């Protein structure tokens, strides 16, 4: 399938705060970000707290001017662009950007009045299940309700590109599904969606393209399939990193037993060694390794409580990057 046209490109974007002359000196937040997002695709930015996701978005939205590098949003420099470009772009900020003493209806009507052809408010409110609190002061809304108001505000102009910084933070599971279903539909209609999230399962489900940031730079990028099939940094390089096995031990394993395992094993998810502990192989190369493990269980006289095969996930990749 041919790739759609880029709606956003960042080339070698650096951003620093402070001054070389000040006591704190110059602090670099972004140290050369390269990123491309396409129309009709969901581009997800992942990274630990402080990795530079929000600063990257702020540069892309034209709220911050990069210290170095170039940003092209729909073919224009967003920092210098005028109302014509801003009408084509929707923005949902991480902190919402909502006035507290105003009712959602008044705010959203005002935002709609800035656009020539806005999305009908009643329709959008129904879509995001907001009708019951449109006339309540924003100060009195729950975190999840505020998120929906901010999301609605970003979509009112029917933009070609939308930036969503943590759109599902604070949402209950049902609202989260509503928002992700909406994002999926908007993608089908050709909107370019650039979002950050901490929900890796949803990111895996939605993302056409993923950029993982760490310390102000993109350390991995690609489709979910590309990222999860990239060779893991584990001890068994020959193993297929996209498949791994997890078994739940029925008892504590001794050091000698662990050392005698035919494959490297490690405790999964930080649990401690004992009955019910989940042990993981970083990767498997084929059925013969399963047979070797079964032989080893027989030798040490331990029948696992549970054995399951798992595909490598975006979460695994994220953790690898975070701890490396």
């Amino acid at each position, binding site marked *: 399938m041919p790739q759609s046209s880029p709606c956003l490109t960042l080339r070698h974007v650096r951003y620093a705060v402070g001054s070389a002359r000040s006591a704190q000196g110059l602090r670099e937040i972004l140290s050369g970000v390269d990123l491309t997002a396409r129309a009709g695709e969901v581009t997800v930015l992942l990274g630990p707290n402080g990795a530079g996701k929000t600063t990257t978005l702020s540069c892309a939205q034209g709220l911050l001017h990069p210290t170095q590098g170039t940003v092209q949003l729909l073919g224009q420099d967003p920092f210098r662009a005028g*109302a014509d470009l801003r009408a*084509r772009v929707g923005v949902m*900020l991480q*902190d919402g950007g909502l006035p507290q003493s105003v009712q959602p209806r008044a705010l959203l009507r005002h935002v709609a009045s*800035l656009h*020539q052809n806005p999305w009908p408010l009643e329709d959008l409110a129904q879509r995001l299940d907001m009708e019951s609190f449109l006339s309540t002061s924003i100060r009195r809304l729950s975190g999840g309700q505020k998120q929906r108001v901010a999301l609605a505000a970003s979509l009112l102009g029917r933009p070609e590109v939308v930036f969503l910084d943590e759109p599902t933070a604070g949402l209950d599971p049902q609202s989260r599904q509503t928002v992700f279903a909406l994002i999926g539909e908007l993608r089908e209609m050709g909107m370019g969606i650039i979002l950050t999230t901490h929900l890796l399962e949803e990111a895996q489900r939605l993302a056409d393209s993923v950029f993982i940031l760490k310390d102000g730079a993109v350390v991995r990028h690609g489709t979910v399939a590309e990222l999860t099939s990239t060779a893991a940094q584990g001890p068994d390089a020959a193993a297929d990193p996209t498949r791994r096995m997890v078994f739940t031990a029925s008892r504590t394993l001794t050091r000698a037993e662990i050392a005698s395992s035919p494959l490297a094993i490690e405790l999964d998810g930080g649990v401690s060694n004992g009955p019910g502990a989940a042990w993981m192989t970083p990767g498997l190369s084929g059925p013969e390794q399963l047979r070797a493990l079964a032989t080893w269980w027989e030798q040490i006289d331990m029948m696992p409580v549970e054995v399951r095969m798992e595909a490598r996930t975006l979460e695994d990749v994220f953790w690898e990057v975070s701890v490396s």
Partner: protein
Amino acid sequence: MSATYAPLSPAPRPAVRRILSHGLYETRNVLRNGEQLLVSLILPLLVLFGAHRLELITSSATPSIDMVTPGVLALAVMASAFTGQGIATGFERQYGVLAYLATTPLGPTGLILGKAIAVLAVVAVQVLVIGSAGLALGWDPEPLGLVWLGGVVVLGATAFTALGLLLAGTVRAEATLALTNVIWVLLGAAGGSVFPLNHDDAGALLLLLPSAALGEGLRTASLQGTFPVLEALILAGWAAVAMLAARRWFNWR
């Protein structure tokens, strides 16, 4: 949803419509805000009645109300342009509202122009209400002076809005709240706005304060019917300095 959502070519409303829309939106928010109404209208009205009844400002040649009314108008303009806009903008900055609106077709320039319209609209309401109350109490301004008074009010509102925005864009919202209120009370009580300046010796230097320039300018316009050139220049200077400083140091987030 697909029936109503279509990725049409999105476009902004014309600039004038956007700015007027934002001006109306902000004006409505101010007039619906009880605390802002208290500071902008109720307190100045109480000062007007109190200073008049207690004859706090006495002059052998001029009736008390003719001195009090322009001074209270100055106090009211400072309340809406400086304290009101400063606090509102400070919290909008804290909550990311300024940053969000800057990403909409309104943009940073439209946002500031819309705020200017809102300040002028609220000041117009203040002049109408306080002026009417003053007239009911016997205020007798020079007819031509009312034209000059309007001009000085606009200059004063510009200078104090710029000062309020400068504060809101450089310090935390809570600090803006405290500072604008304290400064408003100090300038109102001893800054030459409500109470006329002593023009001898060091007192004359106080005219350099924007509050004194506004108060004295309004008194000159309404009592003498002439345009207060010096006071207008001082206010224009404050406006220019505050705008340049805001341009340099204002943080949108």
